């Protein structure tokens, strides 16, 4: 999807370091030489086009609550159905098919480790399939967002 020059500048500059000021969109506008109204309208438009999912926080894993990565080996004919069963849990926030013997990969987050394991147990019971659970042990990367 093509971005206008203004959209590109906003997206590249503000995926991190968003201002903690009473009028943050005005602070963005001042820094970019735009008006507050134009910044707000541009963001609303990006959201409408589903490019922007939100303006907000990316929380470090296992600080607020607990999260994990999990994978399942699902027979191809059952994949859509099992994926829907997995996605139906509100704790699941990413769920992708990947090209591997373990072909369904999802991330889930809940209030604590026990709650995470409880969701996994439920998914195993609902689907009759084993879930391979791969909790984070160490993170090496600082998430800077995407350059567009």
């Amino acid at each position, binding site marked *: 999807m093509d971005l206008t020059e203004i959209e590109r500048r906003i997206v590249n500059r503000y995926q991190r370091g968003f201002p903690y000021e009473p009028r943050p969109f005005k602070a963005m506008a001042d820094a970019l030489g735009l008006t507050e109204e134009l910044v707000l309208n541009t963001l609303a438009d990006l959201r409408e086009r589903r490019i922007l999912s939100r*303006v907000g926080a990316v929380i470090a894993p296992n600080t607020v609550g607990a999260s994990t990565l999990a994978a399942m080996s699902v027979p191809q004919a059952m994949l859509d159905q099992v994926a829907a069963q997995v996605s139906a849990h509100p704790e*699941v926030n*990413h769920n992708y098919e990947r090209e591997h013997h373990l072909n369904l990969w999802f991330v889930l987050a809940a209030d604590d480790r026990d709650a995470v394991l409880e969701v996994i147990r439920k998914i195993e019971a609902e689907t009759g399939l084993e879930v391979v659970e791969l909790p984070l042990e160490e993170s090496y990367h600082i998430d800077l967002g995407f350059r567009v």
Partner: protein
Amino acid sequence: MTELDDTDRALVAALAAGLPLVQEPYAEIGSRVGISETDVMARLRRLDDTGVIKRFGLVVQHRELGFNANAMVVWDVPDDLVGELGRHLSVYDFVTLCYRRPRRLPQWPFNLFCMVHGKDRNAVRAQIAILNEETDAGRYPNAVLFSRKRFKQCGARYGAAKETADIIPLDRNDRQIINNLQGGFPVCDAPFAEAGRELGLNEDEMIRHIRGMCDSGVLSRFGPLFNAERLGGEVVLAAIAVPADRFDDVAEAVNAHPEVAHNYARDHRLNMWFVVSAERPGRIDEVIAEIEAETGLHVYPMPKEEEYFIGLKVTV
């Protein structure tokens, strides 16, 4: 680890759907959590400084930006060397995440994970080749797992009970506005001031609450509900019996028609129900024929024969 209090958790939960796109978003979030704008900003700064917030800003949907190829690259690296290699791989700007996770033998022999995003698979393969050539990664057994179908992608929801994870808190004024305005909105020069008078809210407060509810998705829209038939258009309810394994694909094909307004799965042999509306007489039959041709499935139109009641309202 940083100690979070209940207010921090409530703040993180209130931010799950993002900041409202209004001039003073921290004040708005504060009013939902019950703390001041200053307190919201101070808490966010502290969470940011202590690393609980990894980053704060625009969260974009990479697929919509054309980053369609997304590979999870994994290696099996000896435990005493994995940290050094992980930090080395993280330096590359096309590596968007890099983690160590446990092996689970026999199903899963790998312990180092990187996500690489790119515009197409060849570009991503070239980037992975760089990682394997320029670092020690190439020495170790590895696998590349490209993603295919995306079933779900949204922000993590923390700090809220499971059953209410998707429920957005409403204050007393929000509730009053919802309960009062579903039946009608004043048609006059200053309608927000007029509608607010009855609720004890001024014009600015009315606009702020309504905009907040639109932003958070509580209100899917704010405006008149047209009677399509009186405007000369047609509306028809239709249903299809869809084989379970084709449901998502058929839903996508149906939803691709701009004339389709609602589409729900229901528990019945006819398991997909949707509403088709069109301005021009005859267009509905065309849309139904198109859907039948695209899906190879029979569409059952169920035109309304007589209307007994309309005027859905919910009280909150």
